[in-house]
């Protein structure tokens, strides 16, 4: 968005609560990144509370994780880059209502978004083989880069899936398989998921787009700037925002328009904190829908042990994917589906702590020996499964807990719909099948991933997009129904969550909205 608008001639200020890091600031340090919130929100400074239902008292318990830096989640994500399928945009029409959930069609179709998926793929640099996924929608251009080299996990997954009559394909990933637009190809260092790329080969907005924006001379990046309120004037339009700078001082930044991209948890929180006489329930929240319909990241992780070394600690996380179980099939008797990928995303300490089969001892000599044998001989199959939008699953402001800046903490209310759990179980059987067919000597599950979700890195649905201002927060251009100069571009506008992996769709929506902003501004309509 910053790049699109600044290259189009607009003056842009990017306010980011986290720091502005560069390649040299990233490390291979598991302790810092995985255990000290090196790149993510720190629960100790920014606590949240959690409850399953509004009837429960919310308790302090980490429930959301997001990239807290310039470039956001695109810096530390695993790099899976899946387009939504055409069916994702009209599941309600195709499948009917789901009791206990609010399944809706999107106001836009895949075809509306296709040019922007393509634009994002070429702008960022995505590696993959267009047309290799038989379930994908039509595309106007192939990927700009060929697939990444297949890993042992990909070979085993591919072989087993084909034996089962399925259609595996090379994973589309936001990692450069070859040099592209001045950035180098991946060096296969193995620190992709959760880490920032030290060579700039991960196609984050930080590496691929922010430099373009800054180069225009019209985009100023202001890191360590934590926005606490969006201010409106007497005309119910935004005048600007108030933020805390790095020293904790309050600063007012005037703005003709605001694009809010704080993620599916912080975006509704900021809107709810931005109360005014005109919007006593929070900005853009005249219908009370801001924060509702929160969708989480579902899917179990199956693990398999093999005879020969796979050395999955090298290179990117995912090299093969299948979408055969993606579509919701009424014959299964429940809503939902998912994509599966071959992967291994444990780092050494995390693996020793949580990755070993739970039917084995978890400390002592036998455990230690097994950890030594297993680490290089394993792979996983992860399900990325659907999550239904349920009204009471939400982001709201906690009544008592405050963050380190004295602002109300996030309160997360979330409980999976029963169909989500059935989908997770259904896919778990498929995952097991694949690993066994691949010849795994032992197959087990990360037990936490089979339970109801209480924690998510994908935060979606909390400012739903729709044509009807009574039942949605933003319109089909990601513009707030209530506030003409407010746009929301992150996971929160998603009407459904597809099958997780929302990054490509969020970015395509951003390119599309940027086009719209440009055109609307030239007509004087912002």
């Amino acid at each position, binding site marked *: 968005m910053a790049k699109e608008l600044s290259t189009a001639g607009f003056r842009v200020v990017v306010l980011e609560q986290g720091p502005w890091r560069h390649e040299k600031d990233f*490390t*291979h*340090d*598991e*302790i*810092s990144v995985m*255990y*000290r919130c090196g790149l993510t929100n720190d629960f*100790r400074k920014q606590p949240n509370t959690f409850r399953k239902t509004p009837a429960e008292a919310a308790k302090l318990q980490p429930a959301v994780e997001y990239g807290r830096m310039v470039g956001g989640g695109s810096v530390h994500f695993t790099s899976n880059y899946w387009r939504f399928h055409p069916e994702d945009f009209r599941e309600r029409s195709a499948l009917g209502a789901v009791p206990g959930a609010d399944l809706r069609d999107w106001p836009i179709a895949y075809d509306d978004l296709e040019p922007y998926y393509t634009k994002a793929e070429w702008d960022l640099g995505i590696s993959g083989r267009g047309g290799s996924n038989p379930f994908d929608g039509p595309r106007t251009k192939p990927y700009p880069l060929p697939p990444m*080299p*297949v*890993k*042992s996990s*990909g*070979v*085993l997954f591919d072989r087993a899936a084909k034996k089962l009559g399925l259609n595996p394909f090379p994973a589309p990933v936001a990692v450069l398989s070859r040099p592209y637009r001045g950035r180098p190809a991946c*060096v*296969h*260092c*193995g620190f992709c998921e959760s880490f920032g790329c*030290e060579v700039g080969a991960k196609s984050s907005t930080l590496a691929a787009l922010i430099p373009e924006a800054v180069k225009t001379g019209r985009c100023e990046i202001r890191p360590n700037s934590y926005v606490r309120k969006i201010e409106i004037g007497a005309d119910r339009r935004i005048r600007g925002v108030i933020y805390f700078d790095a020293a904790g001082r309050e600063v007012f930044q005037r703005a003709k328009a605001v694009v809010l991209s704080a993620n599916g948890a912080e975006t509704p929180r900021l809107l709810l904190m931005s109360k005014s006489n005109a919007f006593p329930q929070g900005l853009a929240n005249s219908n009370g829908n801001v924060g509702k319909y929160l969708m989480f990241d579902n899917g179990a992780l199956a693990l398999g042990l*093999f005879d*020969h*070394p*796979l*050395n*999955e*600690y*090298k*290179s990117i996380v995912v090299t093969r994917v299948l979408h055969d179980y993606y579509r919701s099939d009424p014959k299964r008797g429940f809503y939902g589906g998912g994509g599966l990928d071959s992967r291994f995303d444990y780092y*050494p*300490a995390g*693996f*020793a*702590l949580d990755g070993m089969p739970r039917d084995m001892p*978890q*400390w*002592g*000599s036998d455990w*230690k020996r097994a*950890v*030594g044998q297993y*680490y*290089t001989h394993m792979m996983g199959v992860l399900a990325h499964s659907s999550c239904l939008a349920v009204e009471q699953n939400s982001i709201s402001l906690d009544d008592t807990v405050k963050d380190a800046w004295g602002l109300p903490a996030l309160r997360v209310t979330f409980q999976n719909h029963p169909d989500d759990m059935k989908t997770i179980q259904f896919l778990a059987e498929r995952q097991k099948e694949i690993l066994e067919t691949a010849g795994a000597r032992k197959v087990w599950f990360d037990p936490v991933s089979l339970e109801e979700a209480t924690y998510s890195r994908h935060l979606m649905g909390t400012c739903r997009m729709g044509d009807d201002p009574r039942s949605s927060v933003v319109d089909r251009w990601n513009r707030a129904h209530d506030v003409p100069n407010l746009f929301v571009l992150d996971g929160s506008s998603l009407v459904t969550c597809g099958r997780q992996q929302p990054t490509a769709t969020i970015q395509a929506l951003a390119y599309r909205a940027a086009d719209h902003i440009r055109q609307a501004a030239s007509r004087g309509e912002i």
Partner: protein
Amino acid sequence: MSITRREWMLAAACWSEVLRAQTRQFAFFDPATASEIEAIACQIIPDDDTPGARQAGVIWFIDGALAGYDSDKRELYKLGFAETQAKRAQMFPGSTRIAGLASGQQIALLKAIEKTEFFQQVRRHAVLGFLGHPQYGGNRGMAGWKLIGIEHQMQYQPPFGYYDAAASESGSK
């Protein structure tokens, strides 16, 4: 319960780290507590046919963590440590410290407390100190990374493992 020679050597090995501490100061622990915590860590990740918690210097990692970024875990350590000592005294009357127990006794004690938050925290710290980056004082000589068989290079080239190597060979024929 008699002590085997191996157990005796392991106990002695754990002590040697504490002796070393007399020349290098702990930032958080007193030496007596350090030797007790290290005895626990040495049962979680034993120094057996390959280096374990002692040789990897795990106690130095734990000390640094409690002195620094994990200082909010101090209370848990304090309470858990006291409870574990009480459990030791109850299970092994006449004993004075964990490090002084025979290896089998230490294991019995830790099995009795393995569900506690304290044990889980020490386990977490021990594993981080064994397999985390050596810059935090643990994983000396990359003992942990050697155990799990990683090379720890900045870059790699395909093939990465046995199966992709075999596939590319059969594919190129």
